[in-house]
């Protein structure tokens, strides 16, 4: 029933053939990774010739769990997919479910969704810029950027009551209205953030050691990036015009004016500037949306039963495109929910970027995609030699675990 056949990945990577190569484990517990994920780096001296990823350390089975929970409860569960870009997950799920109903989301709710999603983008980009400083060994940038990130988190807390998991969405609307008298405060804080972003752009451009660490590192062909299905900033930094907010507007993005930020033949330095530029764009969008917030209701109350059918939805998270698919048979729980996170889409690009770099560049390059391994982890069974794929039931999986750890107890 169960084949226990270890695959020697080192052998397939040619490690046994050449003795000058070293295998350096990167992860699963590593200071450069905030979440557990394992990469086998095969080095020749300091240069990487092969990277073998091993994902699945934080697999949580959210998609399966969704099948036994009510529609509304699922939304708050999917919000917890990611600890950084949480709100955009609930937007995308809600949009997919709303597609199955006959109701229209009120305009005011769409604007509120846009405001919170853009605030989240600012906070996510600031977090990434700070961490990039940390990975490049520039602690001061890290500390400064994260201090400014508190400004956004405070605003989000004032709006939703929470710093990270906003829990603000509802199916067909939002749960909470914007608090009274927040407008001036938000506009003023956004001005401050634009100022800071311009200052950080100057630092990133002029600080010699930072330039040496980021320029001409992590370069990739636009064609290759497109073939590897790069999404979000990883597509825009090589010049691909790819942004769901513009290509397929959702929420209030068709009413709030903004420009897509792209650059040509990017490297990590360009990526830093791209994310800071996007932050400025987002800050302006928030100011605009707050000033032009329409009056009206914020939600439509709906029954807990969603009509049968299937629908998909996508949106632009700070890290790239998020995709949700839902299928209903007209019950209180979904039949199937499928979600795809940007990290999963960008991982092949990151592995391609790593080849040929030195080990000193690994944290900088690997995290250029802004990885969120907790969102990404999926699981499937596959034999790499015969390409055979299969599925296991829970009991079979348990039996495999027993066989693996206690060979003497195996039948």
């Amino acid at each position, binding site marked *: 029933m169960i084949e226990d056949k270890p695959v020697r990945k080192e052998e397939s990577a040619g490690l046994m053939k050449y003795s000058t190569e070293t295998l350096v484990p990167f992860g699963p517990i590593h*200071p450069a990774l905030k979440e557990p994920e394992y990469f086998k780096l095969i080095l020749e001296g300091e240069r990487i010739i092969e990277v073998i990823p091993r994902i699945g350390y934080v697999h949580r089975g959210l998609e399966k769990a969704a099948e036994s929970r009510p529609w509304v409860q699922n939304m708050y569960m999917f919000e917890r997919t990611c600890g950084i870009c949480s709100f955009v997950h609930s937007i995308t799920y809600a949009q997919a479910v709303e597609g199955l109903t006959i109701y229209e989301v009120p305009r005011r709710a769409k604007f509120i969704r846009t405001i919170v999603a853009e605030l989240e983008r600012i906070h996510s980009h600031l977090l990434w810029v700070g961490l990039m400083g940390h990975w490049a060994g520039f602690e001061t940038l890290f500390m400064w950027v994260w201090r400014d990130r508190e400004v956004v988190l405070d605003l989000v807390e004032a709006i939703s009551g929470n710093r990270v998991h906003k829990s603000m969405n509802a199916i067909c609307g939002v749960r909470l209205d914007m608090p009274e008298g927040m407008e001036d405060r938000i506009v003023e804080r956004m001005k401050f953030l634009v100022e800071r972003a311009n200052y950080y752009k100057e630092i990133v451009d002029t600080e010699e050691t930072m330039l040496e660490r980021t320029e001409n590192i992590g370069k990739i062909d636009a064609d290759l990036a497109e073939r590897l299905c790069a999404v979000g900033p990883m597509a825009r930094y090589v010049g691909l015009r790819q942004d769901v907010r513009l290509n397929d507007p959702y929420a209030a993005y068709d009413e709030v004016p903004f420009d897509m930020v792209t650059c040509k033949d990017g490297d990590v330095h360009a990526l830093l500037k791209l994310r800071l530029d996007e932050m400025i764009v987002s800050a302006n969008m928030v100011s605009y949306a707050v000033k032009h917030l329409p009056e009206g209701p914020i939600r439509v109350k709906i029954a807990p039963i969603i009509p049968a059918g299937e629908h998909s939805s996508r949106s632009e998270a700070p890290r790239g495109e998020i995709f949700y698919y839902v299928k209903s048979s007209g019950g209180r729980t979904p039949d199937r929910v499928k979600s795809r996170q940007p990290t999963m889409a960008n991982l092949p690009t990151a592995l391609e970027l790593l080849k040929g770099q030195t080990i000193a560049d690994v944290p900088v390059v690997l995290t250029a995609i802004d990885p969120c391994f907790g969102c990404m982890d999926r699981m499937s069974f596959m034999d790499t030699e015969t390409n055979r794929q299969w599925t296991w039931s829970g009991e079979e999986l348990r039996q495999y675990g027993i066989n693996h750890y206690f060979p003497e107890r195996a039948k």
Partner: protein
Amino acid sequence: MIAEILEAIIFPGVLFTIGMGFLFDWLDRKTSARMQGRIGPKITGPSGILQPLADFLKLLFKEEIIPSHADRIIFLFAPALYILAPLLSMMFIPIISPSPLAGFDFDLLAILFLLAYAAFVVAILSFSSASSFTTIATGRLVLQYVSYEIPFVLAIITAALYSKSLSVEGIVASQSGLWNIVIMPFAFVVYIIALMAELEKPPFDIPSAKTEIVAGWLTEFSGRALSFLKLTKEVSYVFGSALAVSLFLGGGLGPVIFGIPPSVLYFVYFMVKLLAVGFLVFVLKTSLARVKIAQATELFWKILTPVSLAQVAFVLFLIQGGLLIAP
């Protein structure tokens, strides 16, 4: 005899140096915290001044884990050999009077030897723990050492050439008129940059880059060994700054103030200069990002070595040309 032994052990010898190491650690943490918009240590002692000591004591009592592949003898005893280098070197620096504790005519050569010895001990230590991270760290460490050593020694030699003395005492004494930094500013700059590489401070914390190779060559150490290795880094910090003060900033020399005993004055001047050099290193370290090993080697070989050679040539020209009478 007893007074001399006490001097060597307590002040201005071993204990004083270690105390200064803790003080430097605290200042380092406090300065970088303030520059980064943080508070830094604040609980142990006034403004957290005792935090480094508390950390040291805590680590002393932690369990020591020895990797099974490690070379046990080197792994256990090399930290003790390592701390000897900066402690011994401090004996050649005049701190409270113009004559140091254990100075002799060629003690600068002994200092150069001890610097090389320290790098050698670290490389052996790193290699003995036998893990992938320390193996890479050893490679980086040795490459960094061969990069910074030549400009470092050239900068030291410039001061010795100009002062026509191979003892720290003689070099300090020769600066009673004009400090060496005025004659050889580039040698001082090269010295500070090479010192940061020697101390593995950012931007040259390449052998212990925490986001790349965990803790570099310190990865496998724990407990007592780790506490002593960390202490040694701080003491090396003090020694590096003290050598800079002696070679380029005139040691404890300064204007005489009547009414204050000269030895007290000498010590006060020395400490002020020592903290100034230390502060310079803290600020530089906080405001720079880490470079890669190839970039560091390029910097030292392509830029700093020619600069320090030019400084040596300039000083030789001054002496030979007699444009300025060397003291």
